[in-house]
């Protein structure tokens, strides 16, 4: 494989892993939001697989003690 590494590096450098992840998450979470909220409302947590293969567990954040009182 003969590749112009300078061009390849510049092309890779134009993308940002963080920006790509933000786009993927925005797309997936906006579609799944009602489903996630419904699951959390029933007291369960929601496991979501993101395109790079990692799985995230979404749950309700525990409320601070003062808020419960």
């Amino acid at each position, binding site marked *: *494989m003969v*590749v112009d*590494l*300078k061009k*390849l*590096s510049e092309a*890779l*450098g134009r*993308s940002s*892993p*963080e920006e*790509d*992840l*933000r786009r993927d*998450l*925005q797309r997936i*979470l*906006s579609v799944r*939001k009602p489903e*996630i909220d419904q699951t*959390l409302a029933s007291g369960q947590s929601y*496991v*979501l*697989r*993101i*395109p*790079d*293969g*990692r*799985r*995230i*567990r*979404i*749950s*309700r*954040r*525990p409320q601070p003690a003062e808020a419960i009182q």
Partner: protein
Amino acid sequence: MIALVTTYFLISYILVPGVLFRFLTSWFVPLKLFERTRTQEATFAVTVALLPFAITLFGVWNLPVMRHLPFPIAEGTAAQRTQDYQRVTAILTASDASRLLLNNPSATNNDANWRALNQVIRRQARFLTWYFVLIALEGVCFGLLARRYGEWQSRAPRYRMRLWLIRTFILPNISEWHLLLTSFNWPQHEDVDVTIDILQNDGILYQGRVADYFIAPDGKLTGILLENVSRFDREAYHEAQKTSVPESIPNPKAAQPISSAAFWRTIPGSRFYIGQSSILNLNVRFVARDQTLISLAEKILDAQDTNTYEVTVESEEETSQHPDIYS
């Protein structure tokens, strides 16, 4: 004798520097491993050796330490030096060198010839010592510069000169697979991982994090080692797609879409090797670290900033609770 001298110069001044440079640079970044022609190999070695050669030449003539150490000799005048080389050239090109070196009645200037030979050998040894040291230093600098590339690339306007240097002299000599299958292009502190989707010739799609890759002597990829691997269950996915659209529904597009995420099967084991011969195509993805994933997901979910959602990344053990059974 001339052939021997030519071989000595070729090995000491071109081949050894090339090998030394490659060896030391490879500690930091893998260089291209193309099977080059002899001309290409020689061009590479000469280019690599040019600067250290010039510095060594200047040093052994002008700088006090390099001029005398190692292998010190009583340096004479320039004329004596020239005479030494002339004597050695005469010995090496003579049809019968023994006549100039051995002690026999017909021999002339034997002692002077031995002295000249000794001086020249010591000068050569001193020159080569410094030459190899500078080649080694160049190799280490080359590797260290290449390692900082991702750092500097992320702040391109600030490091324009260094980037130009690396892109012109270093980047063309680095293996393209290193650029594609490692986080070489990104700063180390960003902790970027490389995940890859591999479609095999038999239609099976694998996904995993790149743990390592292997290259043949001709620079071609021979295989990729993956960790945290999943296999896409295409048959089950198609089946689910079919069953989700009952025949009673006139417009199939109106049916609820099936998410492909549920059809990835975790493969047990910590390392999974895929050979190059079975790879049809690759989809390389550079992914941000877990902490970035968590903060982004929480931010997107919590658009009103109510601090309601908590996101955690599942560990590999948790995700492999239901391993694929290679059905």
